[in-house]
């Protein structure tokens, strides 16, 4: 009232008040603009770092998907492979195949005869070239005695020169000598040395030779571990969530359980590894390095996330659904299984996929149970020794050979690809099936 009388009695006051209001408004708008600018700035910073991450990893890693190969005319010398002429599989398996490839390389450069020259020339070819030749002979023994055009992997040092990671000028004490560089230039000029798609990277297990190393062993290890994790953590997590949300009485005990589950979600993952070591390896005597144990440990790790996400999804189903079902005579179990759970499923699945994506990228808990290991053979089941994809990245990052740098980044690209696919699936599920009430 007093205010109004003031306005009436003093029109100049009104103008001043308007000015004050305008100033306040401007201030509020400015604050809002500042807040928006800060928000945009933080998004830009986050995106810049993400872009930086992607460009460095992809920039370093894309070259690993190609690999230098030598195309050679190899004479399958019967005297070397099968001197007895019996085609005995044992003899064929143990023949000195690398000598055949080396011979054909030496035929190209007959001027290199000294022992040191030969050694340097042999170093152009991967030590895994023999496997390729052996497979060819075992698949078709007819080729013994003939000359075939064969594509063989070049050694990692040659690969690094071709890709430009090692300079074309020889360095005193360097990995590649001037003579080797001359040979490489000559072979390239003859189209006998060229980059080809690196199929071995996707089909081979780990190796100490970068040109032979692949991620299949690690991918299979991760796959089996994830299989165990899904099979255990999904039913356990959903059952726990349903019981706690729909059936359990609300008392001090369930509160305690809830607090503990929330705490478990924040426990550092290495702790689950220690638990796995003590329980699964030392008490249950399960095998070391097995994806089964990895999966069990990751189950423990992802359970809290799944339970929390599932409870949130169940809570989001409106009570009217439950009341309607109960009103039509459904039992409590029928209400949950026939009505609430199907409606909550998209949310539950989203939470599960995100928990699994997190578990897929985990290294620390696997350290304690022996999955940080050099495993060449590709695991055939959850009991075979195996590593996992992030562990493979960790091991390659530590390798002294320079060619492992690009392979490390390439393995990261593959892992990021898997994670992106999982997250996209989670988003699609949510978009497609989620219902808003």
């Amino acid at each position, binding site marked *: 009232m007093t205010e109004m009388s003031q306005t009436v009695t003093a029109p100049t006051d009104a103008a001043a008040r308007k000015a004050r209001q305008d100033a306040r408004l401007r201030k509020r708008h400015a604050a809002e603009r500042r807040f928006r600018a800060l928000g945009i700035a933080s998004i830009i910073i986050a995106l810049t770092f993400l872009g930086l991450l992607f460009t460095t990893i992809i920039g370093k890693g894309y070259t690993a998907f190609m690999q230098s190969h030598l195309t050679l005319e190899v004479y399958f010398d019967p005297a070397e492979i099968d001197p007895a002429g019996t085609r005995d599989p044992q003899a064929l398996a143990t023949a000195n195949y690398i000598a055949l490839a080396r011979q054909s390389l030496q035929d190209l450069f007959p001027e290199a005869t000294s022992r040191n020259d030969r050694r340097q020339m042999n170093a152009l070819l991967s030590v895994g070239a023999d496997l390729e030749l052996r497979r060819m002979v075992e698949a078709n023994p007819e080729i013994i005695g003939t000359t075939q055009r064969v594509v063989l992997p070049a050694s990692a040092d040659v690969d690094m020169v071709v890709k430009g990671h090692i*300079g074309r000028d020889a360095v005193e004490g360097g990995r590649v000598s001037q003579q080797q560089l001359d040979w490489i230039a000559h072979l390239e000029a003859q189209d006998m040395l060229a980059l080809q798609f690196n199929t071995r990277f996707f089909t081979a297990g780990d190796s100490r030779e970068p040109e032979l190393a692949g991620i299949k062993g690690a991918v299979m290890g991760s796959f089996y571990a994830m299989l165990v994790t899904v099979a255990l953590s999904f039913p356990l997590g959903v059952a726990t969530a349903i019981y706690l949300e729909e059936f359990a009485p609300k008392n001090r005990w369930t509160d305690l359980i809830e607090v503990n589950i929330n705490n478990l979600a924040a426990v550092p993952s290495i702790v689950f590894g220690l638990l796995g070591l003590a329980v699964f390896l030392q008490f249950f*005597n399960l095998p*070391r390095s097995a994806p089964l144990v990895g999966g069990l440990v990751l189950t423990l790790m992802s359970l809290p996330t799944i339970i929390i996400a599932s409870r949130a999804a169940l809570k989001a189903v409106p009570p009217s659904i439950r009341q309607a079902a109960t009103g039509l005579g459904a039992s409590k179990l029928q209400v949950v299984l026939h009505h609430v759970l199907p409606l909550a499923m998209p949310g539950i699945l989203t939470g599960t996929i995100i928990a699994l994506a997190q578990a897929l990228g985990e290294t620390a808990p696997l350290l304690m149970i022996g999955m940080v290991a*050099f495993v*060449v053979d590709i695991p055939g089941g959850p009991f075979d020794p195996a590593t996992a994809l992030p562990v493979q990245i960790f*091991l390659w*990052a530590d390798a*002294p050979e320079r060619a492992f740098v690009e392979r490390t980044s390439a393995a990261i690209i593959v892992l990021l690809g898997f994670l992106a696919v999982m997250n996209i699936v989670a988003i699609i599920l949510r978009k497609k099936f989620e219902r808003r009430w």
Partner: protein
Amino acid sequence: MIRKSLAVAALATLAFTATAEARDQIRIVGSSTVYPFSTAVAEQFGRGSNFKTPVVESTGSGGGLKLFCAGVGVQHPDITNSSRRIKKSEVEQCAENGVAEVVELKIGFDGIVLASSKKGQPMDLSREQVFLALAKQVPVDGKLVDNPYRNWSDVDPSLPNERIEVLGPPPTSGTRDAFVELVMEEACNQFPEIAALKDNSAAHKAACATIREDGAYIEAGENDNLIVQKLDANPKAVGIFGYSFLDQNADKLQGARMNGVEPTFENIADASYPVSRAMYIYIKKAHVDTVPGIREFIAEFTNERAWGPEGYLADKGLIPLPDDERKQAAEQAATLAPLMM
């Protein structure tokens, strides 16, 4: 639900039977320094024989010996890698758990090098200079004081007038232990002020083995590749790592001379380069006849084409033992003569 729990139970039973039967694959644990060599032999062994490729875990020397000494049986490893000799206490621990006979095989040497980028000045250091540059406390005018040296030229006028900036491994690393033992502890007794502390052993050890924490020594993490990359980016910095990383990056890095000797393959092999350590593998004799392939694995390791001067391990950066010692070690390992301490 019942079917599911049955499946879980079946899975668990399967697990028990899987471990109960004999293992047909060699299990190796231990040092991350020996890992590159052990894995190379394991791969070659798996490729060239009918045995499965051994599984090699990288657990660190101490962790490996702990697992190795935990007992006899398929759930325990057969071989452990170590970048130092087994300790008496560990042998006793082994014996206590039933691992009475352990076969020792010295496989070669690993040099620890100080290296910098080829873009920078070559360094010529002595162990005493390295100690003065990196120790937490150094003797000045007869007293131990906090390290006052900022630049290399403060340590010795013959060294470049550049800030001391050394990238090295953290205390958890075996390379750091070896560096402290072979450089710092060797050098510190050359100073009368520290040698005088000898009777008071804790103070003596602290003076010798403590590395400065004022930023001149930068702990660069366990990953030696990272140190190599940082050296390439910063020509004034010096890095500490194993010889194999210098070997693999010889086009980018130069090794610092130590006491006038360059860290080359030949100089480490004939022990004229002072900072090198021996590497070992330990074999559990009780497993030799239960796990197939251990004898053959040792034979592969001690084959000249593996650990010889021209073998594939030398290609990976292993410095081989001298010829006669190698021959003797191979023979001894073939007979599986147990270690006596």
